């Protein structure tokens, strides 16, 4: 069942109960007070009649100058008094204490036995509301003395009309209640439908988003709650969109890596398979050709070896747990220089090392690999006989920053090449890289190592002027 329908039904029921109960109670109250008023009127009339009878008796005694009135006189006096009452009472009668009828208009004496008993028990007057088969009546009895004779006045007052009008009012009320409840229900349903309309809009929007349209924006309309809900759903779809985008980027990056990797793997493989195949299928092949082909095969096999080595290094850098230790820059740079010496000599390059007494917290093996690659790049970029600078600086402004840099005065890179430099397999000049035995993973590896150390790498370069690679380390970070 819909929420708005449910709410409308519940409200309808509550309205019906509330109006019925309150109007019933009001009706009952008014009926009760009407009856009470009637009783009071009865009492007053009764008292007046009694007074008339008593006064009539006294006057009779005085005019007749007797001490005791006869039963006949009394019945005459009572008859006179009762005749004056008009038709207020539907029935009235006077009885002796023993229940003998003196005067009776229309009373059924049997209805009064219980009341007489109560008078005989010592009460002066008794009233009750009784219902006969068809009528509602007030019955009352009251005792009084005439010449020391105790008499009982009994009366009956018909109040059926009160009940009849009450019934009528009740029916009327039911009708009104029914109409009011229907109106309220209709208005409520309509109102709820209007108020809950933004809900259906939100629903439609959520369905749209579920179908993958993450760009869909819900209109922030309606009550405060709906606005907040729409806003939150919008935020949700936005964040899903961002995550999808992120995942897409990751998967695209991975696909690109695999494509490049396939290319870099297959290029040497093509030469190896091709030339070895050529040697086996050609019948007359001379010694020079065989030597030439073998050289190419060896060269390409070495390239594969280098590629797999670099990939292994990269994978290690990505997945190995760092083994931190405190390393003095002076010792570290000295070690680096020793490692690089053969390559420097091969190209007749100089390595100019500058350092202070800083101690850094690093994984020494990974950092060796980092600087090996950076200096290797610098040597490849430099002309024979050039100088390469290896520097360590502690930041003047912020004491906790250490900047390690490798600078060359070689061929440099263009702005766009700098952007792409750390991309796996990116080579600014493929032919030259191939000649220098590069596979395009060096800077990728460096960037990974730097990232693992929570440091940052900054490359600045100018074509034909040289390149400077800075590793900016946060010593407090790495100490912590």
């Amino acid at each position, binding site marked *: 069942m819909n929420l708005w329908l449910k709410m409308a039904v519940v409200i309808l029921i509550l309205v019906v109960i509330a109006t019925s109960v309150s109007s019933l109670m009001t009706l009952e109250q008014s009926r009760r007070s009407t009856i009470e008023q009637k009783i009071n009127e009865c009492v007053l009339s009764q008292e007046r009649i009694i007074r008339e009878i008593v006064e009539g008796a006294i006057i009779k005694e005085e005019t007749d100058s007797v001490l005791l009135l006869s039963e006949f006189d009394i019945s005459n006096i009572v008859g006179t008094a009762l005749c004056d009452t008009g038709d207020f009472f539907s029935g009235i009668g006077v009885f002796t204490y023993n229940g003998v009828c003196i005067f009776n208009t229309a009373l059924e004496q049997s209805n009064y036995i219980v009341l007489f008993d109560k008078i005989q028990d010592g009460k002066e007057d008794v009233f009750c509301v009784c219902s006969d088969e068809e009528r509602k009546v007030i019955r009352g009895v009251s005792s009084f003395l005439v010449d020391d004779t105790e008499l009982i006045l009994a009366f009956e007052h018909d109040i059926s009309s009160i009940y009849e009008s009450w019934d009528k009012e009740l029916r009327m009320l039911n009708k009104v209640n029914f109409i009011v409840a229907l109106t309220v229900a209709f208005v409520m349903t309509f109102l709820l439908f209007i108020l809950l309309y933004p809900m259906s809009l939100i629903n439609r929007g959520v369905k749209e988003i579920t179908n993958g349209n993450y760009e869909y924006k819900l209109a922030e309309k309606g009550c405060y709650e709906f606005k907040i809900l729409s806003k939150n759903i919008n935020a949700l779809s936005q964040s899903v969109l961002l995550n999808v985008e992120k995942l897409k980027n990751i998967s695209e990056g991975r696909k690109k890596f695999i494509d490049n990797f*396939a290319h870099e*793997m297959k*290029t040497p493989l*093509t030469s190896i398979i091709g030339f070895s*195949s050529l040697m086996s299928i*050609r019948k007359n092949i001379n010694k020079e050709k065989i030597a030439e082909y073998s050289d190419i095969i060896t060269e390409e096999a070495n390239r594969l070896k280098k590629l797999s080595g670099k990939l292994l290094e990269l994978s290690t850098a990505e997945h190995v747990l760092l083994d931190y230790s405190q390393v003095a820059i002076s010792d570290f740079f000295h070690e680096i220089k020793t490692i690089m010496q053969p390559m420097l000599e091969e190209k007749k390059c100089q390595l100019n090392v500058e350092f202070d007494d800083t101690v850094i917290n690093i994984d020494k093996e990974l950092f060796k690999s980092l600087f090996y690659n950076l200096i290797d790049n610098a040597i490849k970029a430099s002309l024979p006989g050039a100088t390469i600078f290896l520097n360590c600086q502690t930041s003047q402004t912020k004491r906790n920053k250490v900047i390690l840099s490798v600078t060359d005065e070689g061929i440099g890179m263009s702005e766009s090449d700098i952007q792409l430099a750390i991309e796996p397999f990116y080579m600014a000049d493929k032919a030259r890289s191939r000649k220098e035995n590069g596979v395009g993973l060096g800077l990728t590896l460096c960037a990974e190592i730097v990232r693992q150390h929570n440091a940052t790498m900054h490359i600045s370069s100018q074509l034909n002027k040289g390149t400077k690679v800075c590793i900016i380390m946060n010593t407090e970070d790495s100490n912590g």
Partner: protein
Amino acid sequence: MNKILIVEDDRNIAYLIANILMLSDYQYVNAYDGFEALECINRDRFDLIILDIMLPGVNGFEIQDKVKHLDIPIIFLTALQDVHDKVNGLRAGAEDYIVKPFEPLELLARIAVVLRRTNREDSLLKYGDISVNINKHIVIQKDKVVNLTPTEFDIFVFFLRNVDIAIFRECLFKAIWNTEFVVESRTIDTHIQNLRRKLNLQNKLITIPRIGYRLEKE
């Protein structure tokens, strides 16, 4: 003689392809990047282009797009294995697509198929006293017409184009039946025996154990 342009940036692979083409006596020109390739195409007439996709400068698809109007058949040569790229290349009108690494004879077979399909192959071949007219599907030995079945004819032409090269059975299957599956090696053996008998090639078309066959030089 068919002239083929090799567009490949890797020097060793370019040299490899050149050496493979030499086996079948094709003429060839090497281009090492996209610009050089476009220059060569503008300057010279080629029967076929062997085109690498990942090239510095202008990539393979772009080159294909630029030379489309010349109607030169193109065989793409690439490390990309992505089906999407394959479809891209073939839809754009490439004749074939070879994934690195490849076998030399596979390349030769594909070249032959493409040249035949585009009617660019040399239609007259000679081997000793045998002359073959490919367009007319006729083999003449000592002025007498020799009747060959279509399959035998195709196999013989393939050998003529690859004289003195050891031909693997798989390679022969690929070239003649255009299928990767080696159906039954006996089928090929039967065809070869028929060829030897019909053309008196007993000492020329020899069996190389465990490999396949070779048509010796005249």
